[in-house]
């Protein structure tokens, strides 16, 4: 088998592979920078919690209309925003930190979602909701993912300076602008939006993987936020290409293959990145004078 057959042919010969590649690439472009900011705000696990929080909304859509993308997406978006707002409000108005309030709300949400799916669906349906199907993206799904990517990039461009300031020195931002709290909620909205976008392709559980794993890998390579976001996007796209090819050639499920590819990049980054283990722990014994 030639290199062309390995790497190019699957994408030129099969429309479903082209769609999967387009959807996954669009998702990487928008979800990975959001993941970088989640990580820098020490909210990496919040993405995971939010992904669970989408479930009851998506499940209600499924209960009413079956496996239809629009109702399930709108339901997921609605549930995600409600959980984000509730968790954010509890953490800002009470003594409880956001990690605890988020955990409480997402667990309630997850239990509720599984309950709703089980009222109507089979285990196969539940697996579809939880793990998605990137190889079955239709026009509606691609349009939705494209729209989410565009909205995310526009919001990141608009609020970039405020997002950086809020992560680096939140009190300083509050002293020069009233944007602090609104930016926090806009950001949580972007997290929900991207998880909803990823949900059709990768399911509620794995969509957060494409958001966080490339971002975590990029942290080992640079000390600036913009290059970190660009690198995360690159890692995300590489993971999608690699995962889809593995899925095609080895008949593996595509979602886990994509996330495992990102995981491989992460593990390599831990060791070989300029801020990784080799560079920081195993440096030569010689040292500079100053």
């Amino acid at each position, binding site marked *: 088998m030639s290199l062309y057959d390995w790497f190019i042919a699957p994408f030129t010969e099969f429309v479903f592979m082209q769609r999967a590649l387009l959807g996954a690439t669009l998702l990487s472009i928008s979800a990975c920078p959001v993941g970088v900011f989640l990580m820098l705000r020490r909210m990496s696990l919040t993405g995971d919690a939010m992904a669970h929080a989408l479930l009851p909304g998506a499940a209600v859509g499924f209960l009413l209309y079956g496996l239809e993308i629009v109702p399930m997406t709108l339901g997921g978006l609605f549930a995600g925003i409600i959980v984000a707002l509730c968790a954010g409000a509890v953490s800002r108005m009470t003594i409880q930190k956001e990690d605890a309030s988020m955990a409480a709300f997402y667990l309630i949400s997850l239990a509720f979602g599984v309950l709703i799916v089980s009222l109507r669906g089979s285990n196969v349906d539940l697996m579809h909701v939880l793990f998605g199907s990137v190889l079955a993206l239709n026009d509606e799904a691609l349009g939705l993912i494209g729209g989410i990517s565009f909205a995310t990039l526009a919001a990141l461009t608009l609020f970039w300076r405020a997002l950086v300031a809020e992560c*680096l020195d939140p*009190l*300083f931002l509050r002293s020069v602008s009233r944007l602090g709290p609104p930016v926090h909620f806009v950001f949580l909205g972007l997290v929900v939006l991207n998880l909803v976008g990823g949900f059709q392709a990768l399911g509620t559980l794995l969509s957060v993987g494409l958001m966080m794993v490339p971002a975590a890998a990029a942290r080992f390579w640079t*000390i600036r936020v913009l290059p970190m976001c660009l690198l995360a996007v690159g890692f995300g796209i590489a993971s999608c290409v690699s995962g889809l090819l593995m899925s095609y050639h080895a008949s593996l499920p595509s979602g886990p293959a994509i996330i495992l590819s990102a995981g491989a990049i992460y593990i390599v980054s831990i060791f070989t990145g300029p801020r990784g283990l080799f560079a920081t722990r195993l440096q030569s014994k010689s040292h500079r004078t100053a």
Partner: protein
Amino acid sequence: MPACVTFEDLTLGYNSHPAVHHLNGVVQKGSLTAVVGANGSGKSTLMKGIVGILKPMSGRCAISADITVAYLPQQSELDRTFPARVIDLVSLGLWPRRGLLGRHRKEDRAAVAEALSAVGLEGFETRAIDTLSGGQLQRALFARVLVQNANLILLDEPFNAIDAKTVADLVELIKRWHGEDRTVLVVVHDLDLVREHFPHALLLARGPVAWGNARKTLSSENLLRARQFHEAWDEDAPWCGSRDVYRHDHAGHRQGVA
């Protein structure tokens, strides 16, 4: 001298407990004032109240109309692990000029370079902030204040864990701001430093113990009164303004609490 900041029966606090209690007074334009007091006496809370981060529980804090504010929070509020270079941190000071979307211009970059030079951090522009020493980071934060070019400057414990040389350099910078007729309030713990360099001092113990000339404010009698301040809040304290408070206040006065 005209007023820069006016406190009118100002009470600031958290969860119904006052951290600054019934403060009245005026910070005059162009003055240099040290804010001193024990931990929990309301110094940082007062700074947050002036800058508007914390809303008053009662009373008001009024800043004159033509005043722009630069606020330097305690270093502990800053995420030192954040992937940013010194120049990125200092450039945040351009926010009042350029806001959320304004492009940084040539003169902005020149202002940042000049500020870095003024604090002795020339050549540190591209250093990651997590590689800076405590003193270097504080110099960078002072450079950010310089870039803000405000006429009211609030510095919250800027000399904590800083070596003597850096303290001396930063004090010179503060004196330069004072010489330029900017109003400066600095939270300080080193009383000798206050006596030597600050014309005015506000001694806080939730309420003001004394306020005025720094040497008189830091008299042993005032310091003794401030030392008797109780840091812990009392969950069973009567509500301020109720009849019980009258008895509570009198008990407090017997203990010397202002």
